[in-house]
Each structure stands twice: as C-alpha cells, then as structure tokens.
C-alpha cells in the first residue's frame, strides 16, 4: 500500500510539477494527454477547464500589470505572451519626409530614432495601410511635423560655456513634434490629442544655424514587422515556485537554509526552544539554487514549479494600458482561430 501511495505521489508530481534538480530540470513537458495515465480523465472538457481556471490580478499600476493565470497550459500562456510582444498593433512613425536637415545627425539615423518613439494614438481607431499605397489616406495615417531651428542667444553672458544659456532650441525633444491633421481627421477626432507618449525623449542636438524640418507619417503595424510597433516594454511570465522541505530542518541548518533563498521565503519559528524552518512565501523566490551548493542541505529540499500557475508581468510603453493590451492579445488569438475555421468551411477538402 505504501508503494502504491508513493507511486501515486510520483505520478502526481510528474503531472503537475516541474522539478529543478541539481544539474537539470525534470518533467518539463506537459504529459497529461488522454491515454498517457490510466485512471486519469484527460480528454478536453470545457466545463472542467472552466471550473479549474482562475485569474487573479495582483498589482495594477499605471504602466504595468501583474496577474496570475491558474489552470492553463504552457502552450496557450506562451501564445498570449508571443502575441503581446509581436502581434498587438500600434501606431509608429514609418515614413519620414526630410525637407531640411542640417544637423549632424544623419537623415537615416534621425528617421530610425523617430520611428522608435511611442506615439499616443489608439491603434483601434485606425486601419492598416493598403499594400503599395504610398500616399496614405486619413483613415490609416497620422501626420506629425518636427520643425526646429537653433539660434544663438544674444543675451548670454560673455564667458558662459553652458549651452543652455548660449543657444535657443539646441536640444530637440519629442515635445517639439506637432500633429498635422489630414483630411477630415479634425472632424473624426475632435478632442483627440495625438502626440508622443513621453515629452522628454531627446531626439537630436543642434548648434546655431542648424535646423531640422521633417514631416512624418505614422502607420499601424505589428511587432513582427518591426520592433518599434511592439506595444509592451516587455511581457513575461514565470511559473509559481513550490518549495518543499523533505525533512524538518532545525537550528543552524535552518539559519543557513534561510540565507539560501530570497528574503521572506523561509521563516524560522521557535517551537519548544528549537528553531525550525518553514516555507513562508514561496512566490517571492527567484530560484538561484543556492541550496545545491551546500552538501548538508541539498537533499532536504525539493525545488519545483507548479506547472499550470503562471505569474504574468506586462509592462506597457504607454500607448495602451496593460489590461487593454492583454484583452487585445486574447482577441487576436481568437481571430486567428476564426480565420482558419472560416477557411475550413469555405474551401472544400478533397
């Protein structure tokens, strides 16, 4: 009976924990497909999934969001992460028409820098530009102008060497970019204020007599095409850590154990005069595996991760709030499925 219990614990572990050993990681791949484990009901059941699935929003700040998804598999969580990075569309500067650039920043470098500036414009209000369309219509293009000239300050003191005093407009910031409405955009977006997300991005430096006069077209694009279109600073996930103490650990060993993990993970309690270690909050750990460097401790602890508990962290560049980004990413995955379903239905298979 004991052997059967151990075997069952072993399969449970194989099914829902990814174990970090001293020299490698075990049980990495999902194995709970129908037929692999006798006695387990693994076929897809939407109702069972809905009962087990939950989302917890841990922290929501203005630019970043941390939330948990429990009960989902790696393939789908990774799909959301990939879509957040590469397939949620945004608006960014694509074409730069240079009328005059006498600064020392070359045209193409200037254009590259302008493309990377995040533009506060909701991409859902715009369409993609048609292929081969060079002009751009009002429904798919935003026009910005950057026109700035540096001049000498006649009131500056004679011996001053501070450029802030000597020159006007010698630093070109993103706040100098102004929106030029095309066509009927003033009617379509009466109270919209299209500008770069941050006003203090330094684009170029000028000296007296140099000027920059460019017109920029912003189009809608996705991160797969060029990284400037990616709406997130980064989007990542990690699995929930799971630390189990295989034997009670006391006194000095407990102190050493507490030092091996990130602060707050292991706490020491005083039970009947002896110091006993207990796992307080495994979630905080960053898994540096320091435990495996101590001969006495390495066999007393099992480091693992819970296979279907994902801690997502999404940081937005400011174009769209991170919760909107996650919703858009999920909708994009649905859109992909729908596209193939439509194709399946429309094209007869031979």
């Amino acid at each position: 009976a004991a052997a059967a219990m151990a075997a069952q614990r072993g399969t449970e572990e194989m099914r829902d924990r990814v174990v970090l050993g001293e020299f490698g990681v075990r049980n990495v791949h999902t194995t709970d497909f129908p037929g692999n484990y006798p006695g387990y009901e693994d076929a897809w059941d939407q109702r069972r999934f809905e009962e087990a699935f939950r989302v917890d929003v841990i922290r929501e700040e203005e630019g970043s969001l941390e939330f948990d998804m429990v009960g989902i598999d790696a393939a789908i969580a990774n799909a959301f992460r990939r879509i957040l990075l590469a397939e949620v569309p945004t608006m960014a500067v694509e074409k730069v028409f240079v009328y005059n650039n006498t600064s020392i920043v070359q045209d193409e470098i200037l254009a590259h820098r302008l493309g990377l500036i995040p533009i506060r414009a909701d991409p859902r209000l715009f369409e993609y530009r048609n292929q081969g369309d060079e002009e751009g219509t009002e429904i798919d293009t935003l026009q910005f102008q950057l026109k700035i000239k540096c001049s000498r300050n006649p009131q500056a003191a004679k011996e001053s060497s501070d450029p802030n005093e000597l020159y006007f407009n010698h630093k070109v910031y993103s706040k100098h970019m102004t929106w030029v409405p095309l066509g009927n955009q003033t009617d379509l977006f009466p109270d919209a204020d299209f500008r770069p997300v941050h006003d203090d991005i330094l684009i170029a430096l000028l000296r007296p007599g140099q000027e920059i006069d460019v017109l920029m077209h912003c189009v809608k694009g996705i991160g797969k095409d060029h990284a400037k279109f990616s709406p997130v600073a980064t989007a990542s996930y990690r699995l929930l850590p799971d630390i189990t103490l295989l034997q009670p650990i006391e006194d000095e060993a407990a102190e050493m154990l507490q030092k091996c993990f990130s602060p707050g993970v292991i706490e020491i309690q005083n039970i009947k005069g002896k110091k006993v270690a207990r796992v307080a909050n495994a979630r905080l750990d960053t898994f540096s595996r320091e435990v495996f460097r101590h001969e006495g401790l390495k066999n007393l602890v099992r480091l693992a991760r819970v296979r279907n508990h994902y801690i997502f962290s999404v940081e937005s560049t400011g174009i769209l709030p991170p919760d909107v980004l996650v919703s858009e990413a999920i909708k994009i995955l649905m859109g992909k499925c729908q596209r193939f379903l439509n194709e399946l239905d429309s094209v007869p298979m031979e």
Partner: protein
Amino acid sequence: VQADGTDGNCVTFVLHDEDHTLGNSLRYMVMKNPDVEFCGYCITHPSESKINFRIQTRGALPAVEPFRKGLNDLMGVCQHVLNTFEVRLFLKSAGT
C-alpha cells in the same frame, strides 16, 4: 491552408503566415482529443512563415474533424479567459 495525405485519416495541413504562437496552442488542444493518435507541427524553414500541422486519427474519423474541434476548443478557451480576466479587472477596480 492546403491539405494532402494518404487517406482521410492522416492529413498534413499547411498553415500560411503562422508560427509557434498558433501552432503550439493548437497542437495542445488537438492532442487533448482522445480520437487523435498523432498530432504534431513543424516549421518548414525559419525564413518562411508557414507550418506543417499533421493529424492522424484512430479509426475512421476524418482528420478534419479533430482540426475543427481543436480550433473551436481553442476559441472557447480564449473566450473564457477573456471573460474571466475582464470580470477580475472590473471587480478589482470596483473594489478599490
């Protein structure tokens, strides 16, 4: 989408403009189907964005059926995730 195979049970779908994002998640949903004997996908060449998605079924079920069911299940999952996420956000913002 193109399909070819020996008989209706083993079909390789060629999905254009797709990569691991849809490939891996769809493979997971199709593998959860007990009628499927084999399911896998591969990227033919990293410079071209198309994947070969192969399904082999047990018995006489035509392979298009698990493919369609997998897509529908994946849509169901996404819909439920979206609903749960939005409800959670609403509750959190309503609570504060």
